[in-house]
């Protein structure tokens, strides 16, 4: 009889301990991302070869199908260039694609070419396209930039922080507060550090704000981990300040406008090869920022799929010492999301069609961001980053040694998921199903490690009460109610908050969510804290307590947005 140890039943800790983390790989030459950027050229060639091969297989190695694929891509690219040009687009874009067009035409009409010659020519075009895409996607990590950025972030932010908190003339030079007081990193930090030297980490955070990438970058470096590579929306490179940070942090570029098969395959190949190379990676599996304010429950599976492919490829390539891929869910918890007003507006206007990415939100210029950062650090509004337990590629928990464990603590060999007749086999349909399963598991973990703040509690309760008192209205009519018509008696509101809080604490005990320490204070104080912090920088406040003892809102859509953070816990039954 085997005695099973239970490595995974420790609850996510809420007791934050400020911690100094030593780097796990002190020498930068050992960083996978540095090794990757040194071999950038070869790496890109490998991506090109491997993605061209994949497209070839997808078209069944048929000349006609390949030709059609190229034509569709050409058509889509020309449409994109015409309809939705961006600042970051390279100047030679139009000429490259007209080159593709004329090559396609000339192959089509050339009578002298045999079928196999034609195929050769089409494959050449395919390679040229994947080459272009791979170059564009590839990250441009420079260690000196990385160091610089880290210094700017840490130094700049802590100056701002200390200016605001430590009063007096000397404040500018005070080091009393560091960024770690402002942004708490909680959860399975030790396991993450441990596993980062044992395998390849794929970190999957929730995504609410454009600030997330910087936050996560900072978190990774604070934890002493080598830099991660990650796919950042190309649109962010339109903004210079972001472009600088992103390049420094090992970001590769994801262009959401390009929806053609060849691009998508090149992107996925890039990601897969990088994971296989041992580069820790970061995906925002929600795809884009959550428009409605809910925690992602439907995840984009494309990039997630590459983690599974990479794991399988590792078993094929190095049967004796296969690198293991660990999936680490992370939630970022705020009182306040800068872009909330435009995100929720977009969500409510959502027509059900995929639309081009709107560029007009609060993060559209460097000026607006700088102004926000100053505000953010000079007023108190805390952020916490919760690191979840690491999962294997099927969503099983892994122990501190990186070994997968089933629900009963029995060890699982992940290789077995890819075996038929004792051989590792490639079955894309199988891996697609595995990806769906992993996506579901990640969403579950998000809900478990999500950390409830006072502001979430008050927003949720208030919106539920408003909905309750207008039961006949559907959501959209409710959101169109004039704000002056809405008010809640404070005592009712307080009582309801109390009930929701009890349920939240019950769920916390059951391991279904995490809570911030300030929720242990008396209810009255929690509510005051919540009101102070809820969307504190918005021009219109989602919730206000009036002097005559009522609770009112200045912007019900915003209130709805913040309320959604607690969607999916069945708390509405409690109010």
């Amino acid at each position, binding site marked *: 009889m085997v005695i099973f140890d239970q490595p995974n039943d420790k609850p996510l800790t809420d007791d934050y301990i400020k911690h100094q983390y030593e780097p796990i790989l002190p020498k930068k030459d050992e960083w996978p991302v540095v090794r990757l950027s040194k071999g950038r050229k070869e790496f890109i060639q490998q991506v090109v070869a491997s993605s061209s091969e994949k497209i070839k297989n997808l078209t069944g190695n048929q000349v006609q199908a390949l030709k059609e694929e190229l034509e569709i891509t050409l058509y889509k690219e020309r449409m994109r260039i015409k309809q939705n040009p961006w600042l970051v687009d390279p100047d030679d874009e139009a000429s490259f694609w007209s080159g593709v067009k004329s090559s396609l035409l000339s192959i089509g009409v050339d009578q002298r070419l045999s079928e196999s010659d034609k195929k050769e020519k089409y494959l050449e075009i395919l390679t040229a396209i994947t080459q272009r895409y791979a170059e564009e996607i590839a990250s441009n990590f420079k260690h000196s930039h990385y160091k610089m950025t880290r210094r700017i972030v840490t130094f700049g932010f802590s100056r701002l922080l200390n200016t605001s908190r430590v009063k007096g003339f000397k404040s500018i030079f005070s080091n009393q507060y560091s960024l770690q007081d402002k942004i708490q990193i909680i959860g399975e930090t030790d396991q993450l550090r441990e596993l980062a030297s044992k395998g390849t980490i794929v970190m999957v955070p929730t995504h609410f704000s454009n600030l997330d990438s910087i936050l996560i970058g900072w978190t990774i470096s604070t934890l002493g981990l080598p830099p991660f590579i990650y796919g950042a929306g190309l649109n962010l490179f339109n903004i210079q300040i972001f472009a600088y940070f992103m390049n420094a942090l090992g970001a590769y570029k994801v262009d959401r406008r390009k929806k053609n098969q060849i691009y998508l395959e090149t992107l996925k190949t890039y990601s897969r090869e990088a994971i296989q190379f041992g580069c820790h990676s970061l995906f925002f599996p929600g795809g884009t920022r959550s428009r409605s304010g809910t925690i992602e429950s439907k995840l984009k599976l494309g990039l997630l799929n590459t983690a599974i492919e990479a794991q399988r490829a590792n078993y094929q390539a190095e049967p004796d010492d296969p690198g293991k891929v660990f999936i680490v869910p992370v939630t970022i918890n705020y009182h306040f999301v800068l872009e909330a007003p435009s995100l929720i507006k977009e969500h409510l206007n959502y027509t059900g069609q995929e639309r081009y990415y709107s560029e007009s939100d609060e993060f559209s210029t460097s000026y607006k961001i700088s102004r926000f950062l100053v505000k953010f650090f000079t007023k108190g509004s805390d952020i916490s980053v919760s690191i979840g337990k690491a999962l294997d590629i099927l969503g*099983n928990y892994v122990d501190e040694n990186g070994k997968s464990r089933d629900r009963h603590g*029995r060890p*699982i*060999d992940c290789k077995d998921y890819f075996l*038929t007749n004792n051989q590792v086999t490639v*079955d894309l349909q199988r891996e697609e199903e595995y990806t769906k399963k992993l996506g579901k598991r990640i969403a579950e973990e998000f809900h478990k490690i999500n950390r409830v703040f006072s502001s979430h509690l008050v927003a949720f309760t208030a919106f539920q009460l408003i909905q309750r008192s207008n039961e006949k209205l559907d959501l959209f009519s409710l959101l169109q109610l004039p704000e002056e018509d809405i008010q809640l008696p404070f005592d009712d509101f307080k009582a309801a908050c109390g009930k929701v809080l009890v349920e939240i604490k019950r769920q916390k005990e059951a391991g279904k969510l995490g809570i911030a320490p300030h929720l242990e204070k008396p209810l009255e104080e929690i509510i005051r804290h919540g009101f102070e912090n809820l969307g504190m920088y918005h021009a219109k406040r989602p919730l206000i307590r009036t002097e005559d003892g009522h609770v009112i809102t200045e912007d019900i859509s915003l209130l709805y947005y913040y309320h959604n953070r607690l969607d999916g816990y069945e708390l509405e039954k409690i109010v």
Partner: protein
Amino acid sequence: MDMNWKKSFDARPIGVIGIGSFGAAIANLLAEKNEVLVYARDEAVVQSINETHKVKNRKLADKIKATNDPEMLCEACEVMFPMIPSSGFQEVMVQFAPYLHPYHFLIHGTKGLSLNLPEGKTLENITQINREHICTMSEVILKETVVERIGCLAGPNLAKELLEHQPGATVVASRYNEVIREGQRLLRSDNFQVYGNSDIIGVELSGVLKNIIAIAAGALSGLGLGDNAKGLLVSRGMVELIHLGNAMGGGTKSFLGLAGIGDLVTTCNSTLSRNYTLGFRLAQGEKLVDITSDMEEVAEGINTVKLIKLYLESTNRRAPITENLYKVLFENFKVETALQSLMKYPIYTDIDFL
């Protein structure tokens, strides 16, 4: 039997877990092309299979071997077919779980449901159940084991006819194409056609829910009613099955396939069906306890009606045939009374699910 299976077989055998009438039929089908190793809990059954190639007077192919050691079965087989009644399914999976690995394929043939209640709750003290409290057998496997590549068999597969080598067909449903392909490769023969379906929940529910209608059909015949009534029941039963099946996560298309309509028509007309027989005897005035006590194997429909009734109440759904059948089975309603209330039921639309 020797612990080392390699001595007993030329190739990797296919496993069959449980050797009731359907298990025996599938084992024989599998034995046409493969080595087969059967798991049975009972030592006497194992012995009788290994020595006389018989189980309860059913003839098994000579090459079929048996064991009562789960570890050995899992060691020897990559593909296994659990063929156990739903009431014992979970227990057997718990027993097998330590020996199962993600490389195993499990293709089950159980047309029943299993309750999955929070700790401390039983059917007696719980007032509300929702979908997550009711598991199909593939969901039980997922819950209790690390096996991912799961399939199910469903369709008009009356064990007796299969054992007589009569022509027939089945559906192998799985989210994984490789499982469907493997099921087809193992089972397909000149006399037996195997279809594939990726909607495993829909196919499982087809097999489960049709049992309710089969009991009702048996009851109609037991009352001596004619074919008009039967036609009415089968068609309204189909509507109810789809209504319930959709609510529980199955796709309409699956209910219209071999595992849905195909199986429904078969069981509603066959005296070989346990569920049909149950209904028939009820209508003739026998008591439920008396019928179940002298049936050789369980009629899955009884448990299904019980669970679905609770599910309906908890989710505010109506399903008139199931509700009335519940009254007949558990509240001493007369079949005639139930039939009358069905005839008065205020629904006048023929089809509303397409």
